[in-house]
């Protein structure tokens, strides 16, 4: 009994207006941080993460760094003093599994999404140049105490390069910690099914026999190997030419030059892999190509804990809150996976696994891991110090130690509890206002009669 079925093609005419509407809404919600100066948070409980808790003490911040920390650290003359009574100071959290700034509204607003390049091999696509520093996701994420992130592209076999940012600044260079922090690779998967669409640039949807699929996969793997070997040869040629100008001048190639730091093991390669066979394969591939692998996703990493430990391959976990993938899996299989990795001695971090809007739930993900077996101290490390160490910035970030970057969050309770409120926030030693798009709208409407 259809009442009407009009088929107006007015839809196409409407689409161009959507970006304009969205453009009007985006941005300007993240108030700029204050200037670096000398600050002393006094009389607070301090959780340095790298060492024992201090029941009551002082943290001194100066010139962007942590200048002193301890039960009786002196407050320098002229410091801005913050009363920490009843509050706790933690290092800022690090979400090492997000695409924050690359995707504002994933559905229905493609002009706000810059998370993927077209094509399968894009080592020269840099998140550094795609992140929108004005993204409203930035403001709401940092106020829960997440002070820095690894934002990564996705799609294809080589998705591009992830960037390590802090969440305070008006431009990406201002926010930048490591501009090109890691290469993102998703190997084409072996076998049908069980995975995301288009994973590893692999056309699951294509109707082909399993043989066709395997052939296509082999071709892509061969292309990847060739590209990595070419990058190594490319740099060797340039090195040789630099020493001896009599040699023929090698051509410049932006694609190959982007790969050089990774084939030379100067920076890690993130392999997206959830299933145990995919994880093993990624590690084997990295060994073959002499790369520094980090597993991203890692849903079933606990099944290969001994292997990962033996190979010393770390994992950036993003599946803690996922539903079990098999019907007969224990109901808590993913909640409990961090505790199993910890028991196996695998280096890991817990990440939000969210493109951006819900990265702010990172602390509760770590809390859930703790409800299912991970110690509270390890849960905290898994979102602070461990991701920093895995990404090679453990000397600068992730704990409250003298000389480290002053990324600090001061709370009225346990950092991982959803009830806890942030009272003060410092990123790179700059005080950050606790306003965001969400507090703005709250202020505007909460008392509307």
């Amino acid at each position, binding site marked *: 009994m*259809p*009442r*009407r*079925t*009009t*088929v*107006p*093609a*007015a*839809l196409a005419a409407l689409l161009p207006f959507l970006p304009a*509407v*969205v453009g009007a*809404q985006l941005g300007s919600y993240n108030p700029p941080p204050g200037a670096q100066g000398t600050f002393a948070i006094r009389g607070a409980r301090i959780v340095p993460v790298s060492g024992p808790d201090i029941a009551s003490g002082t943290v001194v911040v100066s010139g962007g760094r942590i200048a002193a920390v301890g039960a009786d650290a002196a407050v320098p003359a002229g410091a801005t003093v913050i009363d920490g009574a009843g509050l706790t100071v933690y290092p800022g959290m690090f979400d090492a599994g997000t695409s924050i700034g690359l995707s*504002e*509204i*994933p*559905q*229905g*607003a493609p002009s706000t999404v810059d998370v993927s390049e077209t094509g399968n091999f894009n080592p020269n696509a840099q998140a550094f140049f795609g992140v929108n520093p004005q993204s*409203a*996701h930035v403001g709401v994420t940092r106020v829960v105490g997440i002070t820095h992130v690894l934002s990564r592209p996705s799609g294809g076999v080589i998705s591009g390069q992830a960037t390590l940012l802090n969440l305070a600044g008006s431009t990406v260079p201002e926010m930048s910690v490591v501009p090109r922090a890691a290469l993102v690779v998703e190997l084409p998967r072996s076998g*049908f*099914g069980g*995975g995301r*669409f288009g994973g590893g640039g692999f056309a*699951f*949807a294509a109707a082909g026999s*399993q043989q066709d699929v395997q052939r296509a996969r082999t071709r892509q793997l061969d292309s990847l190997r060739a590209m990595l070997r070419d990058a190594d040869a490319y740099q060797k040629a340039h090195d040789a030419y630099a020493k001896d100008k009599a040699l023929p001048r090698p051509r410049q190639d932006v694609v190959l030059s982007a790969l050089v730091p990774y084939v030379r093991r100067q920076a890690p390669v993130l392999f997206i892999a959830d299933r145990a066979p995919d994880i093993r394969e990624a590690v084997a591939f990295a060994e073959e190509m002499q790369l520094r692998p980090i597993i991203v996703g890692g849903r079933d990493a606990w099944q290969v804990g001994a292997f990962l430990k033996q190979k010393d391959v770390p994992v950036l976990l993003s599946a803690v*809150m*996922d*539903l*079990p993938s098999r*019907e*007969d899996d*224990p*109901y*808590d299989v993913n909640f409990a996976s961090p505790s199993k990795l910890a028991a196996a001695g695998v280096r890991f971090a817990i990440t939000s696994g969210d493109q*951006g*809007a*819900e990265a*702010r739930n990172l*602390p*509760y993900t770590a*809390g*859930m891991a703790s*409800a299912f077996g991970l110690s509270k101290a390890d849960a905290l490390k898994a979102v602070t110090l461990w991701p920093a160490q895995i990404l090679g910035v453990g000397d600068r970030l992730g704990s409250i130690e003298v000389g480290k970057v002053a990324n600090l969050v001061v709370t009225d309770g346990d950092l*991982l*509890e*959803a*009830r*806890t*409120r942030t009272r003060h926030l410092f990123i790179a030693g700059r005080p950050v206002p606790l306003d965001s798009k*969400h*507090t703005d*709208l*709250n202020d505007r*409407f*909460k008392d*509307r*009669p």
Partner: protein
Amino acid sequence: MRPTPMLPRTLAALAALAPTVLAAQAARPASGGTTLIRNATVLTVTKGTLQNTDLLLQGGKIARIGQNLQAPAGATVVDATGKFVMPGIIDPHSHMMSDAINEGSLSVTSMVRITDVLNPTAINVYRALAGGVTTINILHGSANTIGGQNATVKLKYGREAAEMVFPGATPGIKFALGENVTRKSRTAIPGGPPARYPTSRMGQEEVLRDAFVRAREYKASWDEYRRAGARGVAPRRDLELEPLVEVLEGKRYVHAHGYRGDEMLMLLQVADEFGFKVRTLQHGLEGYKIASEIAKHGAGLSTFADSWSYKIEAYDAIPYNAAILVRHGVLTTINSDSDERIRRLNIDAAKLVKYGDLTEDEALKTITYNGALQLGVQDRVGSIEVGKDADVAIWSAHPLSVYANVDKTFIDGELFFDRQKDLAEREAKARERQQLERAEQPARQQRPAQPFVPNEERR
């Protein structure tokens, strides 16, 4: 006026098997047995928090609440020292157990019923029990302005679908507004469905108005027929309009999906004009922009704790939404709309303490008692009071803590989730799986990739 509903398929099957099934049922204690939970911190939700308190579950009900209660003969005693007991969580927006979510071919599908497509064996029922959830409202999707009829269900995992349907819950119907109804994100995809009226919020208002004009006339024709002594030819029954007449008569609750303030306001205006109440606005992420208007109409609202920015109409969503609505006197709940999120509604509720300064009891109400009110089951569930259904969960710590997990979940006094039992059975289950896999090996085939189902019509 409401016709006798057709027997759901499961009931019909039950009738055919009557002797054996009924015999099996007779063997099962109808009440769920007697359990004494000892020495817990009891979060009653409506009457404060009770320390070192015992709870007697008997005859499917909460029989006694007090200290040092005597265990009746044959009672199972559970020591809950250091643990917390709270009412079973109620999720007012779920699509769990549904073999179908959307009948999206027409703009008005009030004739279809979720009760006809319930799959009681869905494993996510068990996973939700492990999150302390006992009652859910299973809604039709949001593909059309007026969708199908809902099913309020108790998560009695392992039982027939008919046994899970909550007796006495007020029947409801799904309405939907905004982006999903226009289907723009799908019709734009090559190979997506063709455009279907309405494709704008203007058309959505018109579809509502047209449907209720027709429902009002249909009702009038029956009223006239009855006034005339029900003689002569009765009006032709109309399965599309009957549920809408029930809405006009206040016998069926409207649960209306909407995001933007303006589109929800439109619905409230249409409802006021036709003289019916919207029971809940579902999602209602911009409810905070029209909180006073929602309160004035008397609608409740069921929202996400902090999801936002996943589509354009969710871009102005704020986590303060629920708190602003509560402060304006709107009956507010937090829902999951997700088989994943339903497992951690306790954490979503905890966020309301952070965002908007709700008290802990107010936060707990958004996942318990307020949901019972929204579904018309407040006399049965939603709080811990003597005489109410024994739908409770025992938590390892305060349920608003991220460090808490569920130890046991009871429905009608019966134990449907027990973490210790679950842990104890794992080894045997893993062994069984291995045996099955070995037996299956020669004939094993790769499963085809799952078809892609866009999620926009769910949330």
